[in-house]
């Protein structure tokens, strides 16, 4: 058999996928240490350190590199059999020393793994012991997030790392700076992070964004070698989070969580915690800009009125392509919620919403976002895998699927076009540059959705019109 013939046979074909009660098949989530590593990559000069087996850091690096296409150095304390028996103190200390020697980091972010958590390593105590043995001022700050992968998904790891960073570093009180604002954006793309910072700056405010991996994970080429990529929020800026006028935290389900960075700062320093959904689509972008206007005391800058105008113009021009289209949406809960909010504004009915996340808030959040008359045809699956999502999609027969690369197999099997959003984008260029938020993000998303539908009609037409 020659290769090209064989490759032709290489297709998932009609391979049937059967959901099962006990096993997770093709997970729609990743493990908690991945989310924490991503957060630490958003701090200037930081090196993430996973306390566990070598494979954890290597697998996570490979997964992140395949999406971001940037160096992602994540250290590991590299457990061996002895470590698992006697505890990870020695390895953690050695790892901290070696990271300092090799990287001269501004911060080390430790995320635990299922292994170190299960054997009961007392990481806060190990850190204390390590710091006690070092001359003051010679070691960088160390943040520790507890992220066993048997508790929640990568999003729990992400939010825990944000919270742990703020809890550890943001201790400076006093002297509120009216033009300073903390932004906890959630797991957005580098392009989104850049756009969100521009929005804040446009109001004359200075943002402390955590995490900000907009440059570390989407940077330019290097003129000389960088041990740690440029960019990220400086430790000193995070330390002053307590002096901000307010905190803004993005994500519909995060807004219902009991313990978050914005709540901690509110409690510690008495500052306002504005908890909003992802600023996707018209209303939620309006809400973010309105909040920024309140905090800054300035009106919404003309540039955003112009962008909003162009967005509305676009939506009117293309409304017939999308109205009453039915879509399946999957991914992180807050991304799904953000997308659904927008889709509801343009007439796209979400009929299946799936996530591997388990905040237990997804259904209630979506209920509030979807018009009442559409709700009966909406299936919400949280804590779900792709077997469950695919079964629901197959039954609902939507016109469109919206989600990350891992839904491609489903899209292919069901012959339903996939519009790629979020993370990971492992099968296309440009994942980190995808813009989802703001009026600009809404416009970009609209074009991609409408064009996917137009393309399908065009390709499926016998005539092959060049004018649609």
């Amino acid at each position, binding site marked *: *058999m*020659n*290769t090209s013939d*064989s*490759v032709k046979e290489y297709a*998932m074909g009609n*391979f049937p996928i059967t959901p*099962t009660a006990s*096993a*997770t*098949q*093709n*997970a729609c989530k*990743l*493990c908690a*240490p991945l989310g924490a590593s991503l957060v630490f990559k958003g701090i200037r000069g930081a090196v993430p*350190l996973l306390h566990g*087996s*070598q*494979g954890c*850091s*290597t*697998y996570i*690096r*490979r*997964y992140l590199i*395949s999406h971001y*296409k*940037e*160096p*992602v150095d994540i*250290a*590991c304390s*590299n*457990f*061996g059999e002895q*470590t698992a028996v006697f505890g990870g103190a020695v390895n953690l200390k*050695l*790892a*901290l020393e*070696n*990271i300092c020697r*090799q*990287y001269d980091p501004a911060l080390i972010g430790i995320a635990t793994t*299922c*292994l170190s958590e*299960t*054997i009961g390593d007392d990481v806060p105590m190990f850190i204390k012991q390590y710091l006690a043995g070092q001359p003051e001022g010679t070691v960088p700050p160390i943040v520790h997030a507890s992220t*066993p*992968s*048997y508790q929640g*998904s990568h999003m729990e790891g992400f939010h825990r790392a944000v919270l742990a960073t703020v809890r550890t570093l943001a201790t400076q009180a006093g002297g509120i700076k009216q033009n300073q604002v903390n932004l906890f954006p959630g797991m957005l793309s580098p392009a989104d992070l850049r756009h969100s910072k521009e929005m804040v700056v446009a109001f004359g405010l200075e943002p402390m964004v955590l995490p900000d991996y907009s440059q570390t994970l989407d940077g330019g*080429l*290097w*003129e*000389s*070698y*960088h*041990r740690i990529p440029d960019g990220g929020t400086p430790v000193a800026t995070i330390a002053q989070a307590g002096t901000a006028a307010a905190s803004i935290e993005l994500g519909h389900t995060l807004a219902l969580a009991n313990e978050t960075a914005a709540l901690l700062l509110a409690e510690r320093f008495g500052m306002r915690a504005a908890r909003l959904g992802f600023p996707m689509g018209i209303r939620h972008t309006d809400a973010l800009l309105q909040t920024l206007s309140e905090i800054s005391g300035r009106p919404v800058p003309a540039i955003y009125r112009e962008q909003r105008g162009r967005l509305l113009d676009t939506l009117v021009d293309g409304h017939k392509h999308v109205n009453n289209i039915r879509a399946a949406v999957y991914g992180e809960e807050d991304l799904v919620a953000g997308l659904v909010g927008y889709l509801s504004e343009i007439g796209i009915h979400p009929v299946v919403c799936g996530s591997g996340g388990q905040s237990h808030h997804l259904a209630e959040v979506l209920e509030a976002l979807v018009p009442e008359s559409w709700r009966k045809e909406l299936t919400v699956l949280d804590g779900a895998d792709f077997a469950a999502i695919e079964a629901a999609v197959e039954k609902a027969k939507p016109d469109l699927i919206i989600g990350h690369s891992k839904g491609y*197999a489903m899209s292919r099997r069901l012959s339903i076009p996939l519009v790629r959003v979020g993370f990971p984008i492992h099968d296309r260029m440009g994942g980190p540059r995808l813009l989802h938020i703001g009026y600009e993000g809404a416009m970009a998303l609209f074009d991609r959705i409408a064009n996917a539908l137009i393309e399908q009609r065009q390709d499926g037409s016998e005539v092959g019109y060049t004018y649609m």
Partner: protein
Amino acid sequence: MSSIPILKQREKQIHETGSAPFEMTCDKQSLAGSVSQRACVFCGSRVVLYPIADALHLVHGPIGCAAYTWDIRGALSSEAQLHRMSFSTDLQEKEVIFGGEKKLYRALVELIDAYNPKAAFVYSTCIVGIIGDDVAAVCRRASREKAIPVLPVHSEGFKGTKKDGYKAACDALFQLVGTGDTRDIAPVSINILGEFNIGGEAWLIRDYYQRMGVQVVSVLTGDGRVEDIRRAHGATLNVVQCSGAMTFLAEMMKEKYGIPYIRASYFGIEDMAKALYDVAAHFSSDPFIQQKTEKLVREQVNAVLPELRRLRADLEGKRAAVYVGGAFKVFSLIKALRQLGMRVVVAGSQTGNADDYATLRDLCDTGTVILDDANPLELSRFVIEKKADLFIGGVKERPIAYKLGVGFCDHNHERKTPLAGFEGMLHFAREVHTTVTSPVWQFVPFRSKT
């Protein structure tokens, strides 16, 4: 560039040929905090068993290990596609406290009922032993009830290195070998071990051997089938590729079934031809095999040489850095690159042993940096110092090359292009050519500076 430090404990794992007496440390656990490019025991087992397409691969543990190995390799299958699914017991906190055996049993039974696999492999991840699950007992019960082999793979991530994972996988495979019918197997017959059918490579290689008149009983594990593995003991020779992944199995088969094994590499014309001639020599009692092999090699080489020569004209004198998993692949790549007029200036592997590095030293030109279990900083430092034009590695090495404006060729299991065999050499040369000759490098700041 010398500002990139090398950790003291790692100095003995790096050697520049010709600079000092050769003394390299290797074959040891990675250094904590070093950012090794290696994975873990689980990864080793997963690499070996993954391509068995009609088996169920159930990862017992929390979700990460299964999620990160979902459909990540270009290991093709001619029919069954079950290996491309990701199955996990997705252990939650309550199972970590009370044990995961019940969930494992239920998951196994449900999945076997749903997919009707020919066998099941159950991979233990880090915490499984620690929470005290008796995976072997659950496998025995499921096997009894479902009447298929259900094999535990002892692949707890921290229990050694990737090589120990290879061994755990071979232990599981060895339980299958010897359980099938071998009656129709000819005396001139082989198993191809350590070939994973990335981009269809196993098909190319099997076809060469078959054209020599050699029966290929099984490929372990590329386009693998449980039935073929069960009768692998009927072959009279094992041909083992890859530094160590499946030597364990070859050793066990030699001991129990008396099947000898030879080593092979299918990368580059030189090593590919040698792999065929070595098998022909083993079966030299067959009067036609040598002649058939010569004819095959001649035809194949003639088919690719003209284009290789054309490509070489643009590649002559370029420098390459090679860092891959196994050392045997490094040997082959050095030879293959020489055929393209290129010189290897940095050569390293994740899992090489003392013999491998001695061979490597002999194979490399003076001034080549040899690395064992390197990290991104070391690789970057030597890519810069040795002014490489090309980096050959896997996805984790790619950004090192690109940030510095160096071409890159993916030679890991994620690739989708066959690089083995004579035809594969052509793909390899084209890929190297495509990356090295791109006009984008002229705009790269790092390159234009040096």
